């Protein structure tokens, strides 16, 4: 049976999150100290070699990203921690920030040192005012100790817009604007917040950094899947026995997640489907459960690891109904900047409503597939590009459910 490996959550339940001395006594801020004794290039190289890839969904190598900002010449650079956590079914960043806020601050400070930035922002979703309080207390304690040196961190609050998790929309929001994504390039590492080089990383990504600095890249690269090493925090929801969070090496399979850690399906029912990575993730049938959860293996089956949300549905669930609900989410959250997403999410929701009400025609299925394929290519940002994925994957793996509902 697979076992949890707690690297990011190494201090979970062991320290008082609101006492910086507890964190320091548990070995905290050794990573930052070590980083500061090295050259900036050496720090970046260590992070790059560890193989750590972004935990916010896009899976980009963290060290490689940092290098872009390090190389950029500018009078000011920024480090931004993405704590927007809007992907339904996800609460892992909250668990990290509530239980070990200093590990996130330390990761950000290491990044600041590496790229040459003195200012960090944590963009925390508006639904977490209690987390904002914790972060502010943690920052105050770190400042009082002078442990962050000349690196300053400020918390900014989001206000209930899913799209603001997208890094360029997030930057717009910190600047005090509507949270619409920018056209890219330029990418944030070259031109981000107030047009300055900006590193945006997820909470979980930053929380990995101190321990990588402390124990070294070789140690980290040896954990989990080769191409996406380390651990991943997963949050289990839906019809699993244990609705909980787990931290597991990235070579654990979906089946192990659901049965070993999740305890299987509730009330002795049978498994039907699992959606991984949040509401924008693909639906996965029984036949693909032996896939490892790492980024590339998930991509190979047309699914995503995404945020690590694991939404399990038993044999009694109506997938057309669930997918209709999801299509409403995307219509609501589309920012309206680009036409394929603004119009596409609306039409998709319309068609899903019709299909779910038993008034759909076979024609609708073809049209919805065509619309989905256009959106995944033509939309400006990841929101619109991923929005069709639940529809397309349920049509692929569970088409019979749609057929049974045709009018």
């Amino acid at each position, binding site marked *: 049976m697979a076992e949890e490996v707690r690297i990011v959550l190494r201090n979970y339940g062991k320290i008082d999150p609101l006492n910086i001395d507890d964190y320091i006594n548990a070995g905290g801020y050794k990573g930052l100290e070590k980083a500061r004794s090295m050259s900036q290039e050496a720090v970046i190289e260590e992070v790059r070699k560890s193989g750590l890839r972004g935990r916010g969904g896009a899976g980009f190598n963290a060290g490689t990203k940092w290098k872009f900002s390090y190389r950029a010449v500018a009078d000011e650079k920024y480090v931004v921690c993405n704590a927007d956590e*809007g992907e*339904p079914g*996800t609460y892992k960043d909250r668990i990290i920030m509530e239980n070990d806020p200093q590990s996130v601050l330390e990761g950000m400070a290491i990044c600041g040192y590496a790229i040459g930035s003195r200012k960090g922002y944590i963009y925390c979703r*508006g639904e*977490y005012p*209690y987390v904002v309080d914790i972060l502010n207390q943690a920052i105050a304690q770190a400042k009082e100790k002078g442990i962050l040196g000349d690196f300053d961190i400020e918390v900014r609050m989001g206000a209930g817009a899913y799209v603001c998790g997208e890094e360029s929309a997030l930057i717009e929001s910190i600047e005090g*604007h*509507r949270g619409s994504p920018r056209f890219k390039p330029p990418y944030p590492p070259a031109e981000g917040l107030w047009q300055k080089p900006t590193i945006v990383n997820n909470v979980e990504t930053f929380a990995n950094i101190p321990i990588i600095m402390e124990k070294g890249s070789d140690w980290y690269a040896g954990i989990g899947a080769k191409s996406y090493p380390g651990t991943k925090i997963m949050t289990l*929801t839906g019809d699993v026995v244990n609705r*909980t969070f787990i931290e597991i090496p990235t070579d654990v399979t979906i089946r192990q997640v659901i049965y070993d850690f999740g305890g299987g399906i509730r009330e002795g029912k049978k498994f039907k489907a699992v959606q991984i990575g949040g509401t924008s993730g693909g639906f996965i049938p029984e036949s693909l459960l032996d896939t490892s959860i790492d980024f590339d293996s998930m991509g190979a089956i047309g699914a995503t690891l995404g945020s690590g949300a694991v939404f399990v549905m038993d044999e009694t669930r109506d997938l057309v109904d669930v997918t209709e609900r999801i299509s409403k989410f995307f219509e609501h959250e589309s920012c309206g900047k680009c036409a394929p997403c603004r119009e596409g999410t609306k039409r998709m929701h319309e068609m899903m409503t019709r299909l779910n009400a038993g008034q759909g025609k076979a024609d609708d299925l073809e049209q919805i597939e065509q619309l989905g394929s256009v959106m995944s290519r033509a939309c400006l940002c990841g929101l619109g590009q991923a929005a069709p994925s639940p529809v397309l994957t349920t049509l692929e793996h569970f088409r019979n459910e749609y057929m049974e509902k045709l009018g």
Partner: protein
Amino acid sequence: MSDYAKIISPYKDLPGGIIEAYHALQNKYNYIPEDAIAVAADMFDISLSQAYGVATFYSYFKIGPRGRYVIRICESAPCHVAGADDVIAALEKELGISMGETTEDGKFTLEFAECVGQCQGTPVITINSQPYVNVEPEKVGEILAACK
């Protein structure tokens, strides 16, 4: 200085501070008073339409009055399959209003929300941002009674 200006002014020199100012307003009133938007536009030196544009973009902000207790019900997929609809029906029945409405005495407002990040205990509602997890329709009366 007007009350609105007093609440907004600490954020005036914060780069991009208008969103923080709106949070402060909403903390105080539970919504953003319409007249406060003009004050914000003035203080941040942007047009009224830009100030409106920001306030209306974010679903956490509400312009104009709502109840002293804002109850938001998560209808994201995990809460949906866990029975959010039954919780909504119980709340509507108990309060005698529909989703999106405020009770006549100005005490309660019912709103839809997407995932609020407490998915270990679906279905979830929040009352003035405080989460309540594993909400059972039968318990709704009790929860409401605790709102004084």
